[in-house]
């Protein structure tokens, strides 16, 4: 576990964590799909919660890459 001491992590560290998390979320989504698990409540289920987190991380990664490209120019 990494715990900050008020110094931001490097972008590479952030990207590494997100990459690993996405990988495990995708595995979890596959495993949820196999179980055919449904619903915590109306219109909501664990499957879509996991997918939402994947999308959120993918967007963060996109922003990181955009920032890096901009910085390199």
């Amino acid at each position, binding site marked *: 576990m*990494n*715990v900050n001491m008020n110094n931001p992590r490097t972008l590479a560290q952030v990207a590494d964590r997100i990459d690993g998390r996405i990988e495990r979320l995708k595995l979890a989504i596959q495993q949820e799909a196999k179980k055919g698990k449904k619903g915590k409540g109306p219109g909501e289920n664990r499957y879509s919660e996991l997918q939402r987190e994947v999308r959120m991380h993918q967007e963060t990664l996109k922003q990181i890459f955009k920032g890096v490209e901009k910085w390199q120019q």
Partner: protein
Amino acid sequence: MATVNFLMLDKYRLNNFNGGAIDFSGATLKCAIVGASYSPNQNADEFWADAQSAEVTGTGYTAGGNPCINATATLSAAGLVSVDAADPATWTQEDLGFSDARRVVIYDDTGSPVTSPILGYSADFGTDQGNVAGDFFVAINSAGLFTSARA
């Protein structure tokens, strides 16, 4: 940035085989921050009630800690079981925030401290930390909270 180890409680490991396993699909994992007065007993501690009295206080800190949403236990094709969850939300900078953080504790919040099992805690940060001088965040290792490899 300090990188510290995550230490699993012995009772958490034991309870996985004694009817006390946490179903991660319905778990509410939380990351709480505690001060130096928490002296973990890795062999005897079991529930959030064992650490709660050492919890930090300050503006921006919600008692009980911040949720680590979407806890997952996954199995890779290579046989690696990984336990992970989303990082807790950052504790943003506050002039009247907390400044005595020494460890984080990850537990499953059942609604009652005496029945909320602790999975583990971080090693001591070494020095007092907080959200007074700047944001304070906890980032779980890129490999997850912990893993169990094929024997």
